[in-house]
């Protein structure tokens, strides 16, 4: 399946479609949480993007089929917004053979070349410089592709972000740096990680177009993203910070003891899905009932992803040695084989 022949979920930016996509993201993330509770996930390092759906959906809506992107560890929503198959995603999160990466990558290492997903990354900032390289490829091939690096506010602590922004600006590459600022890096609130939280100012100081947008309104996010993605395509690389709030703990086991109730309630009140829903109803775009119907349909689709993932098989043990190197190369020699040879003399 390639980006070309697949309907990029976000690429239609009318509000109903944006709502639907955000709703699919949230419904999926809720099911990821359930997969964990049912002990069917591979590990507990599962980072839900609930509360920041507008960033994933709004920015993906501005991307074209030939565009590419990398994400951070909290990337489920971005990939779904790009048109991922939730079943294969859930299977990967369960560490199953049917997953996007055959159970080797898991939640933090999902990728799909068909959709231009150059990979999620478990290293904070680790996926950022790749878009500079993708930008060089686009320039070289003249294929008009933009490459977007999605990362969190915490990644602004990583020097490689600045090295990458400097290169993109210097070479005028078709690149967008998208910072999903959910206010927290694990237990550290952004103002405990930096003295100036107006992150776009740094990008401007390096010569990039830099903006910050409120993630509450997905239409505003989509609009800002379109401006910056189109600018990047025209050789004006950019930076977009989307302000939102991480509704739940950092990973499945974190109950956020480090922040208080009041702050959480305030943060969760900034719900882009509820906001879009209200606007559609008040604007007479869609009636409550119609929206409920959409939600029910989506929840049913997402319920199925759990059953699918649970039903899948673990990758075969021998697959462990596959894909360390290209298939045309010999696989690494198993330790057992080496021990056998050493002990063969006996």
């Amino acid at each position, binding site marked *: 399946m390639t980006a070309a022949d697949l309907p990029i979920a976000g690429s239609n930016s009318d509000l109903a479609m944006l709502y639907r996509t955000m709703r699919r993201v949230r419904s999926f993330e809720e099911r990821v949480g359930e997969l964990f509770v049912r002990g069917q996930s*591979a*590990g*507990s*390092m599962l980072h839900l993007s609930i509360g920041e759906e507008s960033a994933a959906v709004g920015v993906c809506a501005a991307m074209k089929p030939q565009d590419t992107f990398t994400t951070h560890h909290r990337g489920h929503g971005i990939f779904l917004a790009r048109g991922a198959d939730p079943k294969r995603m859930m299977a990967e999160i369960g*560490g*199953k053979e049917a997953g996007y990466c055959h*159970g*080797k*990558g*898991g*939640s*933090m*290492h999902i990728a799909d070349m068909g959709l231009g997903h150059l990979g999620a*990354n*478990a*290293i*904070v*900032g*680790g996926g950022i410089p790749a878009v500079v390289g993708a930008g060089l490829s686009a320039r070289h091939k003249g294929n008009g592709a933009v490459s977007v690096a999605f990362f969190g506010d*915490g*990644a*602004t*602590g*990583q*020097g490689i972000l600045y090295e990458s922004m400097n290169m993109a600006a210097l070479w005028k590459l078709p690149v967008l740096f998208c910072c999903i600022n959910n206010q927290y*890096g*694990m*237990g*550290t609130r952004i103002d*405990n*990680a*930096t003295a100036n939280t107006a992150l776009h100012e740094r990008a401007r100081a390096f010569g990039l177009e830099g903006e910050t947008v409120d993630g509450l309104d997905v239409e505003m996010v989509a609009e800002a993203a379109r401006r910056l993605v189109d600018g990047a395509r025209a050789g004006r690389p950019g930076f977009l910070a989307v302000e939102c709030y991480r509704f739940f703990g950092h990973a499945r086991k974190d109950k956020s003891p*480090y922040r208080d109730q009041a702050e959480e309630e305030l943060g969760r009140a900034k719900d882009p899905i509820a906001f879009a829903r209200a606007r559609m109803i008040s604007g007479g775009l869609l009636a409550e009932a119609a929206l409920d119907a959409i939600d029910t349909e989506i929840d049913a689709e997402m319920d199925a992803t759990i059953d699918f993932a649970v039903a899948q098989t*673990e*990758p075969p*043990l021998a*697959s*462990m*040695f596959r894909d*360390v190197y290209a298939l045309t190369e010999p696989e*690494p*020699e*198993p*330790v*057992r084989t*080496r*021990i056998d040879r*050493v*002990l063969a*003399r*006996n």
Partner: protein
Amino acid sequence: MVEMTYREALRKALADAMTENPDIVLLGEEVGRYGGAYGVTRDLIKEFGEHRVIDTPISEAAIVGAAVGAAMTGLRPVAELMYVDFIGMTMDQLANQAAKIRYMFGGQIGVPMVLRTQGGTGRSAGAQHSQSLEAFVMHTPGLRLAMPATVADAYHLLRQALVRPDPVVFIEHKALYTMKEDVDLDAEPLPWGKAAVRRSGDDVVIVTYSRQVHHAMAAAATLAQQGVEATVIDLRTLNPLDFETVRGCVEKVGRAIVVSEGVMTAGVGAELSARISEECFDFLHDPVVRVAGEDIPISVSPALEAGSVPGPALIVETALRMLA
């Protein structure tokens, strides 16, 4: 004797050392309010304040670099690297700065810092959160390297690391944090740099460290049931390396298996196997066998993850075949 977990022992070592020495400061990601990704520094910020337990931005290179500068100007920093997998971002500050400053500057100044981190498999954390990278450190002159396997060593090696004159990389194992042991912390500890013979037997010597010590002990117990007596050596520190203890046991027994969780090729096991083969040549009845991690990345799939590193079964099987 009190019962304590590996995590609690580490925390107590930090608390006790910080109480004794006001110049000890902790810095790292989430070491303060969050209490450490694995809870080792829980509530230390309440006890010692945010000027001695410093939450940092996500900047591994600068964290280590800041620790170097702090150590050169009179503090005794303990920098925490949340996962040893992130050492790649710090290798310049660690290997080109911390490790070489005393030497390059002709002995004018040392860098008495500790870099605490943790590694290993066991949590389906995937290729970038499950590695065992101690070989990089062992291959860097100027860096000391401690890897505690027991609760008592978690406490004592950390206390000892905090009075060493040179930079110490202290690698914990993520699968050991909840391990409980009865310990008497007032009992005289083994000296820094001394290996521990955890069990003695005349049939085969198993040389290892960190979590694999427990796999080796489990293997030794199984082997005993089959009449095979194994010596298990816990190296405790890889730099300094107590090769004398290894030599003594191997020359007596004549057979050695070296076990490490890190990938086999050019790893710690290679150094141990090479030294034993070179220096105990005339005493070996059989070639040294390396039991180590596969030369592959770690998968999130629990099945593949478990299959990628040694366990008691492989150690038992290897010993039995060696003695067959």
